[in-house]
């Protein structure tokens, strides 16, 4: 029943996106093509990042077991381009804050889902051999959705001209956390030697914390005026 397993993983990965799209009211605003445009921007930004990484970062020939902290840190810094891309998408969309955030985040996350998850699932989950990593991959895509919504909200807040001074610092910290979340996760896994399920749990907790904080700040900002 391996096609069944592929169906399981695919529905676990894709249905939350579908639910979010339907229930956030985006479908009423005919936001489908805007999301597709956001997805296209995602592709473009990833391409630029890859070219940049390939050109300027040499492969590190150290020992196999030692983790190259500095190198990975530098690579994670390149992920700042993600923020630029999100900002670009949001600035091109006219509308309320929530609309902009949701459109950008949905398009971005869906593009990431299709590009980085569909093919491994198709090739791997259909095979005879069973592995837990496909279920974990699908869960991970759910977590990514929440992560990108939070990231888009933080970027939006950062670029507001009427952001109160006291908010600057928390917003910047959250921004930094968003960008370096991947790096932090790898650090945790390497230092504490976490198993795959534990790492997933830690990632979920971290994303949840970031998104709660950003939601709190967002609500405060929107309803303070």
């Amino acid at each position, binding site marked *: *029943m*391996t*096609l*069944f*397993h592929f*169906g*399981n993983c695919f*529905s*676990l990965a894709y*249905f*939350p996106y579908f*639910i*979010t799209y339907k*229930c*956030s009211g985006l479908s009423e605003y005919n936001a489908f093509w805007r999301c597709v445009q956001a997805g296209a921007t995602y592709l473009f930004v990833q391409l630029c990042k890859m070219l940049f990484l390939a050109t300027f970062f040499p492969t590190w020939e150290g020992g196999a077991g030692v983790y190259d902290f500095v190198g990975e840190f530098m690579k994670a810094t390149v992920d700042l381009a993600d923020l630029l891309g999100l900002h670009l998408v949001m600035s091109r969309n006219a509308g309320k804050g929530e609309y902009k955030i949701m459109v950008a985040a949905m398009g971005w996350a869906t593009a990431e889902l299709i590009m980085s998850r569909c093919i491994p699932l*198709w090739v*791997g989950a*259909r*095979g*005879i*051999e*069973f*592995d837990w990593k496909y*279920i974990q991959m699908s869960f991970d895509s759910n977590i990514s959705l929440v992560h990108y919504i939070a990231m888009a909200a933080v970027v939006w807040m950062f670029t507001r001209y009427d952001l109160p001074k006291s908010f600057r610092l928390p917003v910047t910290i959250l921004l930094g956390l968003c960008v370096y979340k991947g790096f932090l996760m790898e650090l945790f896994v390497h230092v504490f030697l976490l198993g795959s399920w534990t790492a997933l749990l830690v990632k979920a907790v971290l994303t949840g914390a970031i998104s709660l904080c950003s*939601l*709190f700040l967002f*609500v*405060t900002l929107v*309803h*303070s005026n």
Partner: protein
Amino acid sequence: MFEEASEVLENMLKWSVPLSLVLFLVLVCPLRAEAAHEFSVYRMQQYDLQGQTYGSRNAILNTEARTVDAEVLSRRCVMVRLADFSYEKYQKALRQSAGAVVIILPQNMSTMPQDIVQQFMELEPELLATETIVPVYFALEDEELLSIYTQTQISSSSQGSSSAAEVLLHTATANGFQMVTSGAQSKAVSDWAITSLEGRLTGAGGEDLPTIVLVAHYDSFGVAPWLSYGADSNGSGVAVLLELARLFSRLYSYKRTHAGYNLLFFLSGGGKFNYQGTKRWLEDNLDHTDSSLLQDNVAFVLCLDTLGNSDNLHLHVSKPPKEGSPQHALLRELETVAAHQHPDLKFSMVHKKINLADDTLAWEHERFGIRRLPAFTLSHLESHRSPARHSIMDMRSVSSLEGLSRNTKVIAEALARVIYNLTEKVIAVLRSHQQVQEDQLASLVDWLTAQPRAAQLLDKDSSIVNTLEYYLSRYLKDVKRHLVRADKRDPEFVFYDQLKQTMNAYRVKPAIFDLLLAVCIASYLGVLYLAVQNFGLLYGFLRRVTAPRVKQH
């Protein structure tokens, strides 16, 4: 009406295109998963000899793995370790029409206790005698295979004994294994050529010299062709023959020691399959050639078969030699040399009449005996039915070759006495520089046992045949190959292929696991849907939390 029809057709077409695309993708895309473990398996023998079929018929496999303790074995791949193997368990698997049997052998056979090795050696002919359609494989054990075996054993023994809840829990955590072999169904190999090699040393002094023929068959036999190394049977015989060739070629190169006997050396192939090589060679030489050394004056034919580590030496004859014949001379010399120079060796003659009603001949000398040539076989085994002649356990052990070199010395000494007619002497005839070289013997046996020498694996281009030919041509003259191909209409022997395959073990979960997972995912999605629908509640809560602060400003 037509409009409606066209509308329906339009709708159908609109949906059929993406549907057919999906269907096409599903059906056409090849599945290539990575296996949990990939290892080589060696199949049991499969051959026809004189019309009788032996061994396991089938080769393909795609079944779940179980161990022998499981209750349901049908259409499953049964895995057994050598230590737990017994004939009853094997019969049980066959009775329940198992999909396949895989016997796991340890990497280093010397770690196995002797009684298990002995028991398996005795079982081998029984395994082959029952013709079966179930493929039987042998695999060498490594860590991953051992872990697969232990996991399968745990899941096999727990079936049918626990409650429903335990079974459910079990399905979520356990790993099943699916064993798949690559390769096709086995089929007969057409036009296989068994090669035999001959070479000679011509005696001094004109025409019509008597000929002594020395014969050894170089192939080996066991329950799995790729695992039959045949160290003793007949690697030792080949080593002795090659050493004698070297020794006598040296002696014959000096005028003083050039004797008046022709020496004909013959390395026969297909020896374990009723001596096919020898049979055809005799037919060709005696029936189809005008003049051959075998037609004229043959003093005797000495066959060498299994001369390894043992303190016994038997001369097997089909007719006791007559007084005054060269055969009798050799028998007497062997007794003398054994008694005087190697008292620890127990030498005796064993008389066994040729029984033509048997399926196969007992010893190689019987082929010559049928053609009325005086022949006998030297072996340390007392009976031709000894399991040591047909076992995969016959491997090069770490022990020294003392017994082999002693037997070689005895044979060389006795032959020298007969050839040079020095039967009166009591002391050794062969001096120090004409002695048997022990390291030469050791390296020959090492080389012979480094690869399997089953007859199905040695075609005329194999490296073993080429090396033997090269070695013979260093010391002997007129080294010739002799090929035996099975007759087209009534083949004496038929070999089958697919003897070595790669087996993949895939980790699988039972079908109920997928259903369970689907239920869990559906409930998770339900919870998520509810959470998203009621997101407004969280939003309102946070707003109420932040609102008082705003009011204070």
